């Protein structure tokens, strides 16, 4: 049963991932990405890591995807079609990715993963919480704090950056001059 579910999830993930990176309608691409993320959440459910699955659904499905959609709506029309990528570029990128994949798979298939005797049940939220706040050996209190500081910094940064300057008066379309401005602002 789990095997079948896994394969279904794998198929969903791969199919929508491919769709997400090839679709020329940007909003659709975002939605395909959402499906991929949900599929991954499914994987987490499969290994009984419900906490992370929940996070995956809320943070990704609820937060990031909404952010993407807002960005797309701020910048593009919903119907906007992306520019076609040059075939040559696609071929090179494809070849490169395939080569990388081949190397990775080859490495995975030849690597003798150690057998484990311990049995796995599930990962509990309480364990995670203790682990995160533990300051003993193997505790994650320091990275946890660092991540929280980082999140604050990013939050402030994102506000400052996105606020930016007022739109220029003339709202002229992109020009060489525009790119000059970019340099100055950076």
């Amino acid at each position, binding site marked *: 049963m789990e095997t079948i579910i896994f394969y279904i999830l794998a198929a969903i993930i791969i199919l929508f991932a491919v769709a997400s990176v090839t679709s020329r309608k940007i909003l659709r691409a975002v939605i395909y990405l959402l499906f991929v993320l949900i599929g991954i959440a499914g994987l987490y459910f499969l290994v009984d890591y419900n906490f*992370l699955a929940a996070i995956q659904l809320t943070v990704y499905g609820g937060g990031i995807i909404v952010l993407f959609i807002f*960005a797309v709506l*701020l910048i593009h029309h919903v119907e906007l079609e992306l520019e076609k990528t040059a075939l040559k570029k696609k071929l090179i990128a494809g070849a490169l990715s395939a080569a990388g994949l081949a190397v990775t798979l080859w490495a995975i298939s030849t690597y003798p993963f150690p057998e484990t005797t311990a049995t796995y049940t599930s*990962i509990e939220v309480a364990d995670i919480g203790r682990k995160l706040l533990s300051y003993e050996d193997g505790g*994650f209190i320091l990275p946890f704090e660092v991540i929280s500081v*980082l999140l604050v910094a990013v939050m402030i940064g994102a506000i400052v950056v996105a606020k930016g300057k007022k739109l220029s008066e003339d709202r002229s379309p992109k020009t060489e001059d525009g790119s000059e401005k970019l340099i100055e602002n950076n």
Partner: protein
Amino acid sequence: MIAGISIYEILTLTSILFFIGIYGFFTRENLITVLMSVELILNASAVNFVLINTYLYPDLLQGAVFSIFIVALAAAETALAIAIIINLYKLIYSVEVKDTETMKY
């Protein structure tokens, strides 16, 4: 542990996902879609962390904790990146990759 599924199959799946992300990163012409490809890559690695933890070291929690960190980082990164993209759009009215080549100089 997923019954009937070995670590090889899972790693194969995440590798494929990873390289789809890479492919998207290379080919997409729009910064938002490039960012989406990055999400794919991040997710692939997060899954790797969790599954290697459950398959190889079931008595430990490191992989699980790290995947939480990854989610946090991904959220932060996305928020910041989108802020930058919107600002960029304000400046040059474009979020095309080909218009942002000031790295050349």
